[in-house]
Every structure is written in C-alpha cells, then in structure tokens.
C-alpha cells in the first residue's frame, strides 16, 4: 500500500507530532511495564500460584512476627534494667540502623548493576527518546524498591516493638515512616553512584562477578567469624568478668557523620527516654538525601553512556581453558564413554564459568568448617559411660543431619541440572545421544562432589567423636547409599519439573518442584533413620551393658539393615525409571 494511502487511514498515522510531557510523566511511563507486569501476574494467578503466594505471605508474617517478638522481649528486658537499659535500647536502635544502612548500601550496588546496566529492556530504553533525568528517576525508583523491600519486612515490626514497649504516641510512628524515605534514598544514591563508577572501570559483567564473589566471601566470613567467636560462651558467667570495659565501650558515642546515626537520633528521643534534637537530625537526613540524589543524577548523566557501552563487552574464559584444567578434566572423566565425558566436561566448565554457581562453594566450605568445628567444641568431658552414650547418639543424629545437608545442597545443584540447560536443551535433545547417557552424565557430575561433602561431614565428625567402629562404618555406608539415592531423586524430580526460562539455578531450586524434592528427601531420610534406629539401639545397649548379642538380635539387625538397603535401591531405581520417562516427555 502506498504511503499516501496509509496516511489517509485514520488508525494508521504515518507520522504524528511526538507528544512532549514532563519528566515525571515519562518516569512513570518507564515504570509502568513493571507495575503492569506485577498486576497482570497477580490477576492471572493459577491455583498453584495463589497457594505459593499465600505461603509466602504466611512466611513473611511469621518472620515479621518473630522479629517483633525478638525486639519486644529484648526491649522489655532492657526497660527493666535501671540506667543501663537506656544505653542498651539506644545501642540496639543504632545497631539496627547501621546494619540496615550497610546492607542497603551493598544491596543497592548490586541492584543498580542490574537495573541500570544489565537489564534486558535497556536496549529499548537507551534507544528511545527518553531524557536522562527521567531515565535516572525511573530506574532509581526501581532500584530503591528492589533493594529495600526486604528491609521493611524487618524494620516495621522492630519499630512497632519500640513503640509498644515504650508506649509512645503516634508521633513516633509517623516519624518512623517519615524517616524511612530519606534513609532509603541515601544508600541507594550512593550505591548507584558507586556502581556507575565501577562499571566505568570494569566491564559490567566482570563487575557483577566481582560483586557476587565479594558478597559470598563477606557472608562466608561473617558466618565463620560469628561461629568461631563462640557466642554460646556469653551465657557462661565467666564471660562477664570484663563487664566494666564492656560498659565503657557501650557508652562511646556513635560516629556523627553516618546517616544511620542521624536516623537513630531522630527516633530515639521520641521514645521518651532522653531529650534530643529530632527535627535537626531529620533535616540533616532529608537534605543529605536530596544532595545524594542530585549528585547521583549528575554522575550518572556524565558517566552512564561510557559505562553502558562497556557493559556490552564480553569476556574470555580463563581458568577452564588452561591446559592443566583440561588435562585434569580429561583424566577425571576418562572412565566414562566419550559422549558422557563430553557432557560431564561441559557441565563442569559451565559451572566454573558462572560466578553465581561456583561462588556457592565458598559458602559450602564455610559450612563444612563450622559443621566440623561444632563437633570439636562439644562438651564431651565426663564419665566414660556418659561420653560413650553422648558420642554415639550424636553420631547417629549426625548421620541424619549430614544427609539433610546433602539434600539441601542437592536441591541447589542437582535438582536444577536439566532446567539449567535452559533453551539450549535442544542441542542435546536433537543430538544422537540417548537420554540414559545424558542422565548418567548428570548423575556422576552431581554424585561425586556430594559424596565428598557428605562423607567429609560424617567421617570427619565421627573421627572427632571417636565413635565405636560399627557406628563409624554404618554411618559412612548409609550415607553413601543415601547420597546416591538423593542425587537420583533430585534428577528425577528435576526432569519432572523442568523450568527452562529461569535466569539462574537458585530461581529453579526455589520453585514448587524444589519444594516437592525437599519433602521427598525428608521423608526418605526420616524413614532410613527410623529403620536404622533399632539396630543401633540394640548394639549400643549391648556395648553399654557389656553383653553379647543374641541370635534374635542379630537377625533383627540384619533385617533392619536389609530394609534400609532395599529402600535405597527401590527409591534409586524408581527415580531413574521415573526420571528417564519424564526426560523423554520433555517438549520444547
């Protein structure tokens, strides 16, 4: 059809004058797809989706309730301690704000990286005639919401507890609500600015890797530090020997240049415990937020385009392309048929090139260290009889715990195995590879590291505990069988609940299939433990009493252990059969 003809068509304007509107209108327009998506998702919820939403809401309420109870009890206790209670109440509020501020700053740096530099819709937005200011405010709003909503879940019940315990008037609640916007804006503006500078120094994809890595390291370090500090010693009266120095440290003033201090100084006087200048500190907070926002806008205006351009750069594979790594992978996979080797090497390479995947190993290492360390500090001194009793009971409980830890790790790494193939699954589906071979490749890639993890947990702790040899080998053997089954079950449920659209493994694991898998694992581990409890008990009492086992007891033990082996075999074979069937049925 000719252009002239089209121009006459009322519903097909060839050219129209662009309608100029204010930046706020444009910013709202930029935010509208997100809001509409949320609304649409909410309106089109399936039954399963509604159940999940209700569960999430219940979980949020429970967490909020727990936070409230914690603060309520702590603050009630502080309120009952004359003089020192006020210091503690202040310190707690100050700690709440400083913790929130640090978390918000970090979370905003990470979130801004996605919202400003890596988000999929950026191509369209950057190419559109959108002013820098309206783009900044739209994305800034998204960043604040994405990075801060979780904090509100904790902050709201904490502030409510402060208000309830100190019977404040409505002024406290109003100020608490008014304090939040500037308090949230400051770390967000700082985060966006830091990210923009970082992206100009490193390409965005590297920046994301570095941040993921740093955050995982930070969490692992905090976890290790917290555990190695042995907080349980605080309940020991000996821990109060240095009380006076503790008190003096508590009374030192906070650093007055921190927004968290200003927020504390806004709210604390309103509790009626001491006087202050809330209006002055609120002004400090609000003006700093405004300045930070403007500074962020200016930095972004100048540095966004060069940073955005760098964000498009790719990167080369490093570690897994080294000849040594290739040799090691070839050697490790040597016993397997060629196609299986290929798939296994591909699995390992893609795992170690995805920072969000391999960095979880650091957390796992921290978990293993703390797990084993916990056993090394168990108070097992006492009479030999009591020690023997405790050690072997703990060793048995430890078996269940280690199996549970293995299942928890498997839900994150094994269960998503097929889904993580994503839309590239066609490569394997259309190749002349039998699904059985694919299945076993995934199985061995999952089973080896999980066996190392599980057996380390069980054997290292049992060595610490110096349990009886029977218990030592029983735990090791049972865990071996359980890990094989847990991995097979993970692959089966993973094949039954494929999710090729997920962005990452964590998202896949958080789906309904992950929940089903964990429930099945719990049931399986529970049944194994119940079946083994009796033989362990019989052997245990015979050792304690120094009596030999009767023939009846032996046959009972053998029956129980055979039942454990049969259960493992049945679940394992059932999983393989079911999983292969489901894998066959996957359509793309």
């Amino acid at each position, binding site marked *: 059809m000719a252009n002239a003809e089209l121009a006459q068509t009322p519903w097909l304007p060839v050219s129209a004058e662009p309608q100029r509107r204010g930046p706020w209108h444009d910013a709202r327009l930029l935010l509208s797809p997100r809001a509409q998506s949320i609304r649409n998702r909410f309106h089109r919820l399936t039954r399963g989706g509604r159940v999940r939403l209700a569960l999430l809401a219940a979980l949020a309420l429970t967490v909020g309730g727990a936070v409230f109870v914690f603060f309520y009890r702590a603050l009630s206790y502080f309120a009952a301690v004359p003089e020192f209670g006020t210091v503690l109440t202040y310190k707690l509020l100050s700690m709440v704000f400083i913790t929130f501020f640090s978390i918000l700053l970090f979370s905003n740096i990470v979130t801004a990286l996605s919202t400003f530099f890596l988000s999929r819709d950026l191509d369209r937005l950057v190419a559109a005639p959108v002013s820098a200011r309206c783009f900044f405010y739209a994305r800034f709003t998204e960043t604040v919401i994405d990075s801060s909503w979780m904090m509100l879940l904790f902050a709201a019940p904490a502030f409510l507890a402060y208000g309830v315990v100190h019977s404040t008037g409505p002024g406290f609640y109003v100020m608490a609500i008014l304090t939040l916007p500037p308090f949230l804006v400051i770390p967000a503006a700082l985060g966006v600015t830091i990210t923009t500078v970082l992206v100009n120094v490193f390409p965005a994809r590297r920046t994301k890797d570095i941040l993921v890595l740093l955050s995982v390291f930070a969490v692992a370090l905090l976890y290790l530090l917290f555990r190695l500090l042995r907080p349980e010693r605080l309940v020991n009266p000996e821990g109060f020997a240095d009380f006076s120095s503790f008190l003096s440290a508590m009374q030192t003033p906070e650093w007055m240049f921190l927004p968290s201090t200003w927020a504390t100084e806004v709210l604390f006087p309103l509790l009626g415990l001491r006087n202050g200048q809330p209006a002055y500190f609120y002004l400090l907070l609000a003006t700093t937020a405004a300045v930070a926002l403007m500074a962020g806008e200016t930095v972004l205006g100048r540095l966004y385009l060069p940073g955005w351009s760098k964000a498009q750069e790719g990167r080369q*594979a490093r570690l897994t392309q080294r000849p040594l790594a290739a040799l090691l992978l070839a050697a490790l996979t040597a016993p397997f048929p060629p196609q299986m080797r290929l798939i296994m090497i*591909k699995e390992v390479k893609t795992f170690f090139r995805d920072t969000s995947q391999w960095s979880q190993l650091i957390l796992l290492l921290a978990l293993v260290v703390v797990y084993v360390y916990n056993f090394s500090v168990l108070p097992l001194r006492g009479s030999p009889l009591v020690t023997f009793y405790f050690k072997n009971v703990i060793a048995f409980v430890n078996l269940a715990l280690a199996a549970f830890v293995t299942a928890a790790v498997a839900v994150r790494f094994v269960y998503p195995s097929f889904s993580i193939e*994503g*839309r590239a699954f066609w490569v394997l589906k259309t190749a002349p590879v039998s699904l059985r071979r694919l299945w076993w490749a995934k199985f061995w890639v999952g089973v080896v590291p999980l066996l190392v993890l599980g057996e380390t947990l069980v054997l290292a702790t049992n060595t610490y505990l110096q349990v009886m040899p029977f218990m030592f080998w029983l735990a090791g053997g049972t865990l071996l069988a359980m890990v094989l089954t847990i991995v097979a079950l993970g692959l089966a449920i993973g094949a039954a609940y494929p999710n090729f659209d997920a962005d990452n493994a964590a998202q896949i694991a958080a789906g309904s299939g992950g929940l089903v898998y964990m429930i099945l694992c719990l049931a399986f581990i529970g049944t194994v433990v119940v079946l083994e409890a009796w033989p362990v008990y019989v052997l245990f009492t015979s050792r304690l009493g120094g009596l030999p086992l009767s023939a009846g007891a032996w046959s009972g033990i053998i029956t129980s252990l055979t039942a454990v082996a049969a259960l493992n075999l049945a679940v394992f074979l059932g999983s393989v059969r079911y999983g292969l069937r489901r894998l066959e049925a996957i359509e*793309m």
Partner: protein
Amino acid sequence: MIELRNLTKRYGQTLAVDNLSLDIPSGEIFGFLGPNGAGKTTTIRMMMGLLQPTAGIVRLGGHDLHRQPLAAKQLCGFVPDRPHVYEKLTGAEFLDFAAGLYHLSAELRDGRRDHLLALFDLTGWCDELIESYSHGMKQRLVMAAALIHAPRILIVDEPMVGLDPRGTRLLKQIFRTLASEGVTVFMSTHSLETAEETCDRIGIINQGRMIALGTLDELRRQDDRHLDSKLETIFLSLTGGLDAHDMVGGSRA
C-alpha cells in the same frame, strides 16, 4: 530421505498440525512456508524429536524417529528458530561439543571446526564466551554446529533471521552446494524471495494443513490467474493475505 506420514499435533482443543504427509528425496531443497502460527515450527520440532506428535510417523533417512531416534538424529543437522546455546562455552568449545555428540574423531573434528569457523567468519571470536556474541554470530555458530558432522539431512527453521546480506548469501550458497552433494535441506522461512531463489519444491501450510505443494511452476499452474505471478502473490492468495488490502480499504469506507 524425509518422510512424514499423517503427522498430527494437538494442543488441547487446538489442532496445530493436521494430518501432514510429505516425502522429500535426497538432494532436494524444500521450502516450508506459511503464515505465523500455521504450524511450521511445530512440524519441525516434531521432525527433530523436540515435540511428540499426537499421531503420525516421522522417518529420517529410513529411520523411524520414534523407534530409532539415535540413528535418525545422527543423520540430521538442526538449526532452530532461536539460537539458544551454552552461553558459558566458547564458540570453539561449542563446536567441539557438537562434534562429540555426533561421534566425530578428534582429527576430523579439529579440521572441520577450523574450516567452519573460517567459513562463518568466526575464527577471531572462537575463544570468546558465546554470551558476548551478537544474535547473528550465534546464528552462524549454530549453523556451523549443524554442519560439523556432515549431515545427510539439514533441517533449518528461519535460517535467515538475524543474518546480514553476506551471511544470507553464504547460507544460500551452502544450501545449494549441500543439495548438489545429495544432502536434503528442509527449510522453513518467511523470506519468499529466498524460497523462490533457493528451493526446488515448496510446501505451503496454513492452519496446520498443507494447502499447496510443488515446484514454483506447479504452484503457478494451480491457478490460471497466477501463471506469471511471483511467489508472494501465490502465497498471499492461498493464505488469505491479499485480503488485508481490502480490509484497509473497507475500514476507510
């Protein structure tokens, strides 16, 4: 070489492919055309085992895809409509992986990989992670992977999308060369010009049914009005696209 017998796919109440039967001999370039949602991609996905047919049989090189899937797939190279690949592998690693899946020896693999990388202008990028490739580069990489084992059947879904004119021309030449060597090329496309220029026979599918099948001349002869027409006119006439003009006119009346 490709045999479809009464192939049917039903999604709930919707009949996506309706009783489709087709024979394509060796060395033929077959163009599979149809409007959006006609059932082209569904048919191709059933031909590659990505979708299970509700009814019917797919035979590739004489092998029943359902009964002998590995033997059937070994003969085929496949290029999907969207080039999703392993983003964390490099281009060279992906080609090696694809070669391994089709049991190529290391010597053969290395030679073919280097040749295909050069042919598709990817040599300079072969050690970069695929995540940094453009859409067109991914498309070329997937095409290289489909050819690495020298397939007897090449099934391609919208091969020209995202390719530059040079890439498009290269692909047309590759299809012709492959066909002259006896390879069967089954290609779905929206580019009627490409189909007209490249394909030996054309099948037009609409609402899941094959509504026209033959060489371009045979299609022209199906309707006296189209004896000298281009493929676009025949296609629009058969699929109802010509009505759009009347609809636009009608709305202004």
